[in-house]
């Protein structure tokens, strides 16, 4: 008896990236090899964005290309490397050049900072980080963390400043055009990022109908209320993986590690895989239908 009305929040990847102004602070979704906003990162490079600051728990190839292209040189993060393969090669070089600044937190600390942002409280308490150099050594913030005596127990408690970034960007398996999101497999810190950011962009592998969302409200990880823009981006996390849809492209990552040992190699990689392909569609064409099919997940296993 109530008429459903569905707002259409879909825009293209190019349009979405255009909204990000130079100097913007971005809460960055995905965790490790899982669902990182790779296509979004590549488009940020194509559009020559500058002076971004990225907040995330841990990310890998996506952050390393942003560092190589000098799109983002400020990070509030917990982890930055290419798991199992080695240190992040572009980061390594840019650090040597003195170009990158870090504010180091632990993974839980970053996740709680996003949770605090989502709750709209100025800080969150944590029992970790205390006793480590992370509390004292700082490069970006005057208010990295505060230690107070707990007014209930008298014991020291670390307070972390909440994060409410200008933009929150995540990748998801499915979303409807209103921004209702289904996430499958691990959620990392994406639920908190979307709830706490000022403008949120969801890159969805597949757009599904609002009907499908409403048939299974228990599967909605993120209600559309939090989402400003929805971008349909198949293989949007390549060369990393998306649970249930496709696996990581290990040979490509290994080639990346190899090429980026030198600045020249990185420039070559960037030209070949990011700039010359023109856009995400061009990239998929370059990877080739055959290879993409090989990467497709076995539905029984999810990879």
């Amino acid at each position, binding site marked *: 008896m109530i008429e459903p009305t569905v707002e259409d929040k879909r825009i293209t990847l190019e349009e979405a990236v255009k909204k990000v102004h130079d100097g913007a602070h971005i809460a960055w979704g995905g965790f490790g090899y899982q669902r990182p906003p790779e296509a979004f990162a590549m488009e940020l490079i194509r559009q020559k964005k500058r002076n971004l600051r990225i907040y995330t728990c841990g990310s890998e190839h996506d952050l390393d290309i942003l560092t190589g292209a000098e799109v983002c040189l400020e990070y509030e993060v917990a*982890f930055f490397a290419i798991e199992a393969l080695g240190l992040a090669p572009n980061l390594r070089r840019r650090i040597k050049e003195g170009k990158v600044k870090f504010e180091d937190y632990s*993974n839980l600390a970053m996740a709680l900072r996003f949770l605090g942002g989502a709750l709209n409280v100025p800080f969150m308490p944590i*029992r970790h980080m205390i006793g480590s150099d992370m509390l004292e050594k700082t490069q970006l913030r005057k208010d990295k963390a505060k230690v107070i005596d707990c007014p209930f127990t008298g014991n020291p408690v670390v307070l972390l400043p909440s994060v409410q970034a200008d933009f929150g960007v995540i990748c998801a398996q499915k979303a409807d055009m209103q921004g209702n999101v289904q996430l499958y497999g691990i959620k990392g810190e994406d639920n908190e990022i979307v709830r706490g950011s000022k403008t949120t962009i969801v890159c969805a592998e597949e757009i599904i109908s609002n009907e499908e969302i409403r048939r299974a409200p228990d599967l909605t990880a993120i209600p559309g209320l939090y989402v400003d823009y929805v971008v349909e981006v198949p293989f949007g996390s390549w060369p990393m993986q998306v649970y249930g849809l496709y696996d990581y492209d290990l040979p490509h990552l290994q080639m990346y590690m190899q090429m980026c040992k030198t600045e020249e190699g990185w420039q070559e990689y960037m030209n070949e895989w990011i700039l010359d392909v023109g856009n995400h569609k061009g990239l998929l064409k370059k990877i080739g239908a055959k290879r993409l099919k090989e990467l497709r997940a076995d539905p029984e296993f999810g990879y």
Partner: protein
Amino acid sequence: MVEYTSTEMMAVCGAHAVKDGERVFAGTGLPVLGAMLAKVTHAPNAIIIYEGGNVDTQNKDLALSVADSRLGYRAAASIGLIETLGFLMMGGKVDVGFLGAAQIDEFGNINTSYIGDFDAPKVRLPGSGGGNDIASSAGRIILMFTHDARKFVKKLDYLTSPGHLSGPGSREKLGLIGGGPSLVVTDKCQMDFDPDSKRIRLKSVHPGVTVDWVKENVMFDLSIGKDVPITAEPTKHELEKLRGLDPQGIYLAKGQK
């Protein structure tokens, strides 16, 4: 006599450190091999948790990343970081955490962040990741890394994750609920921590390694008892199971015979 590599030795030492029924927080690489090996040998009821969100996993294939889709296969739950590092880890519900390190000091404090000066580092390492969280709150910590004298330092370049800090009582004073490091496994030896001084000490040397070699390859005064035993060799059964877990040799291929 069984043949095995130094990497296999490490994985087996890691497995031995896990008791049946324990909740184990494992990073990718050798730690997960150790935890998985424990589960298929003496600790079938061990429960393995990965920080990305997969809880009580029964994965079939080995993972490259703690967020790897492989870990979602037959997991009891797939949730997020607040769940694994918050409710479970900071909640005090994890018995054992495995960690690596680029440097450790004599109290088992860990550096995984910077080599050299913080403001102009020679190398930026991966950072804490969940390491600080695990070191702060897991019931006990098992450290695993290949042996190199430059890793056992008198003073860390950066303290990422708390070991026993400055000795007895210093963790408690800061409200850290975890027990701190209990075991260090390298490809040359095992070390544990003196319960009174909380200082690291040699526990056993792997077959073929001398106590003197270890002494020379640690940059602080290592406490060494009178009779340092030789680490038990992996059994044939353990090696078979272990190789079955990594049939492509993703991690095991790296070791020396």
